[in-house]
């Protein structure tokens, strides 16, 4: 069943179609929520909220091409995640290691050898602000200007937070790869 048909059946409150939507997208949306929130239980809850709202508003979805349904659902999830994060205070999290000025980018084959759960865990270690900016910019393609508007920070603060998030992640990756070699 293509996305357009799936959305049409869901708008008719077809239970089979709704269950199909869950089976298709729940895991991806859950991963997206874990990326943003860092916590598994909160991510599960946010995923369920996102899918329920998407089904309630499925009448407003407009098919614009392959993958647009997931894009539409993802946008709902991202906005919900940001609202959820904003409810917390954006504390300053002191780094446990010195941030190096110049860390080379890891190689592609090295990156492929890293387990996904490790990546999820390192992203979760980032502070709320750095994690949110990293997800929005590096993984979800938002510009710094858009990120600034969404989070209520300046563009410069978004750029700075992203730089620090990258350095922190690269340091983690470098340490892991070094341990693997030994």
């Amino acid at each position, binding site marked *: 069943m293509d996305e357009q048909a799936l959305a049409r059946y869901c708008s008719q409150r077809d239970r089979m179609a709704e269950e199909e939507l869950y089976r298709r997208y729940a895991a991806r949306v859950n991963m997206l929520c874990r990326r943003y929130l860092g916590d598994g239980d909160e991510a599960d809850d946010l995923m369920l*909220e996102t899918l*329920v709202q998407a089904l309630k508003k499925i009448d407003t979805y407009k098919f*614009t091409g392959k993958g647009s349904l997931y894009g539409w659902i993802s946008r709902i999830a991202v906005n919900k995640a940001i609202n959820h994060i904003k409810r917390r205070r954006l504390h300053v999290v002191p780094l446990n290691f010195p941030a190096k000025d110049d860390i080379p*980018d890891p190689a*592609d084959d090295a990156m492929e050898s890293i387990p996904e759960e490790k990546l999820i865990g390192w992203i979760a270690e980032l502070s709320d602000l750095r994690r949110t900016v990293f997800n929005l910019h590096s*993984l979800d393609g938002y510009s710094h200007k858009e990120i600034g*508007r969404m989070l209520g*920070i300046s563009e410069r603060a978004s750029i700075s937070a992203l730089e620090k998030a*990258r350095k922190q992640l690269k340091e983690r990756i470098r340490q892991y790869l070094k341990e693997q070699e030994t």
Partner: protein
Amino acid sequence: MKTWESIIKDKLERIDATLPENLFTEFLTRLDASGSPAVAVPAVRPAAWRRPLLRALVPAAAAGLAAFLFLHKPSVPGDGIQVAQQPPAPVAAVADTVKSEEPLQSDNLVSQAITPKVANHYPVHVTEPETTDNTQPSEDTAEVIPAEEGSISETDVVSDPEPSVSAPSPVIPKSTAAKPVELKVAPAAGIVTGGGLLAAALTQFIGSGTQAGTNSASMVNNLETSYSGSFATFTDEDSHHFPLFKEGLSVGIPVAPRLKITTGLEYSRYISTSSHMMDSFGVHGFQVERKQVAQYLGIPVRLDWSLAKNRLLDVYVGGGAAADYCIGAKIIIKYTDPALKDSIQELRRDGFVFSLIGAGGIQLNFNKRIGLYLEPELTWSKPPKKAHLDFYGDIVIMEEGDYRLETYRTAHPFMFTVATGLRINLGKRY
């Protein structure tokens, strides 16, 4: 060539994670709950008829207060002269002719001056049989009164062992003693009643339109709320802070003929808006509109100098300071994309905000005690510390004392505003 970040993205999206079965069960439960009208929780918003009623409360309270003070007669006359009421009953009868006592002979003028004299009595017409034996003035003779027709009775004698030298004037002169400034019962009751009604009306405005809780069972069609903790910045080019109008209940305490202290309660409401486009995933863009509403209750204290005044108008200038406290702040976010819910978020309130005031004013007096004032004001408040980046580039959330809501006041430390409201004049009216 892929970046390491894009590799992360691909790896995470390829995860074929199997979600626990209980999540699917929970999903179906929430789906059923969201579609059931019995579970839906209505938004906690005041009924439509309450808002106009509440907005009418403040002017109604003011009108009631004005009527009360206008109609209430003060227990002590403030100023002016008073004509003494003449006793309705006539005094004791006296003979047609009364001999005056011979003045005591004295050798010197001083003793003559201090010698009490007996006034000549004017003849009084008597209707009852007169007693001719009594030719001497009695000690019970009443003091002199203007001759007038009417029955005279012995029982109405007003004894005065020392008749006054001259006819007493019916006019009681104005007291020259300055009355102390003191709070009378009527103005005090008016202040308490009016202040209480104003505070009650204000709390209704603060509590409207919000709903606690964010779980899915509490979602309603158009509103989703989150609890306090958020803060908002207005960095968009199309943001706008609206100028301010204040409303208040004020008291004026005169301390000199042209000088008075004014204080009271002032309510101010700062509104800021912004709008920007959002676009992502290559899908059609949508507009995000934000509206921030911040409410403050303040106590100004000012010394005013009257430039000119009459019974109806008072024109004055003054200076002082004010302390404002944030009693409510929220941001309303609306999306043009129907897939996204509008939301109302409570914002972190800032604490006390102190400012200096310079004002001119016109007061229209309804009576001696109450009036309506209109005051253009220039205020200055210390600009807040700007959020700064720490060494690692994160935004540092400021401590409570540093945090300030972004409003017209933070954007314009020197701020022009107009204050209006009701003023109660206490104490002596110069």
